[in-house]
């Protein structure tokens, strides 16, 4: 069975029909890139996958658990689904170490020492072992985003959702974050990335999902989708971004 099951999902914001019957299955260890024009529903789909947004029809399960927006269910889901945002969302009043240790200690009830060890290991993984005691505002955007990745990883998630996590970064800092993602992909982490980094989607991703007007317009193995787009919409999109 797939790790993530999305079946005929419809989502409305009031009268606005944003997701129009999404079907998507994601296997453990897959790296999926969701591409598409602004407003096509990429973020909304991602946010439906961990209960940040309600959907009105259809069903989503992650790791066998039904996704709803009820607080209890969202909290249970948070143990298997990590999410990283475009705007980092680090907690400004906590050090990098405290940012990473917070959820493992109060949600997973790990001892402080255990949480600290995990935090240090995760920071090491993202190349920021020396920033444990720094406050977020002293870090560059790229460093903050890598801390956010470490913070998500410390919860030992089964799947990591990334919503344009390099879009707010200066171009020279994007590479460091992508390198971390690539490393995670190699280690077998399941990644769902909404991204504008087409080269990354093609070279690192297993599968590409092209969204258009609230639908999965086209999908397939990453290299094929870029080399041989089937629909005019994807052709146009690929031409406009590559």
């Amino acid at each position, binding site marked *: 069975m797939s790790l993530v099951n999305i079946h005929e999902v419809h989502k409305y914001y009031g009268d606005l029909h944003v997701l129009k019957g999404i079907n998507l299955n994601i296997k453990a260890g897959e790296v999926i890139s969701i591409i598409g024009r602004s407003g096509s529903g990429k973020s909304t789909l991602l946010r439906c996958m*961990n209960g*940040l947004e309600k959907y009105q029809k259809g069903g989503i399960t992650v790791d066998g658990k039904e996704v709803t927006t009820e607080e209890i269910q969202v909290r249970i889901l948070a143990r298997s689904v990590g999410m990283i945002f475009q705007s980092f*969302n*680090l907690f400004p*009043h906590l050090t990098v170490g405290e940012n990473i240790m917070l*959820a493992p200690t109060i*949600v997973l009830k790990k001892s402080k020492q255990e949480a600290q060890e995990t935090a240090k290991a995760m920071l090491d993984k993202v190349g920021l072992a020396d920033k444990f005691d720094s406050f977020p*505002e002293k870090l560059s955007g790229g460093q903050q985003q890598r801390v956010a990745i470490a913070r998500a990883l410390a*919860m030992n998630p089964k799947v990591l959702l990334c919503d344009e996590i390099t879009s707010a970064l200066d171009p020279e800092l994007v590479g460091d974050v992508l390198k971390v993602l690539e490393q995670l992909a190699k280690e077998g982490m399941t990644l769902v990335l909404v991204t504008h980094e087409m080269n990354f989607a093609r070279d690192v991703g297993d599968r590409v999902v092209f969204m258009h007007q609230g639908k999965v317009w086209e999908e397939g193995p990453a290299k094929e989708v870029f080399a041989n787009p089937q629909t005019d919409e994807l052709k146009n999109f690929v031409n406009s971004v590559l």
Partner: protein
Amino acid sequence: MLDFAALLPYSHVFIHGLITTVEISLLATVLGLVLGVTFAVARQYGATWLSRVVNVYVELIRNTPFIVQLFFIFFGLPSIGFKLSAWEAGTIAMVVNLAAYSTEIIRAGLASTPKGQWEAGKVLGLSFKQTLFRVVIIPAIEKIYPALTSQCIIVMLGSAVLSQISVQDLTYAANFVQSRNFRSFESYLVTAFLYLFLAILMRKAFNLIGKRLFSYRAER
């Protein structure tokens, strides 16, 4: 001729008044802020009815004179069976007053929390309460800390009105002394300076606490 030496025989009266003002203000500040945080949370995140109740309370206090609130508590409440000493009535009036103003200030701080902070807490598995108290509250208070500081000082200075129900505070002392030695200029001048001194001291204390609470900014 000015004669400040004429106040010297009454220095113990001033000291006693000063202590009373400090005691009441300190108590009112602590209790008022604890209630302010509680009410602000209820107002911002509570059920609709709770939010409305808090709002009525806040608007009632903010749109009536402090002295009327004080008289109501001290002279009005006994007629329905709540008899309070002047000291108790004065302290309660100040707590009620500061709580209302600080509710509105702290609520504004909470409201300015970026949505992303709540979402980050959520996707890490934190409950609403955990996110509120571990993530949201400190940066929220930081944003409105200067306004909160000023409000606490305003309420401390407002305690002068408590002399009207014969709480023996600093202003009461000044009234008492000048009625004895007829040195009203000297009496009130010294008293004004004592209030000024308290206000400066209070601001310093708030700054010190702020430096500790928000040390993540100072570390630049």
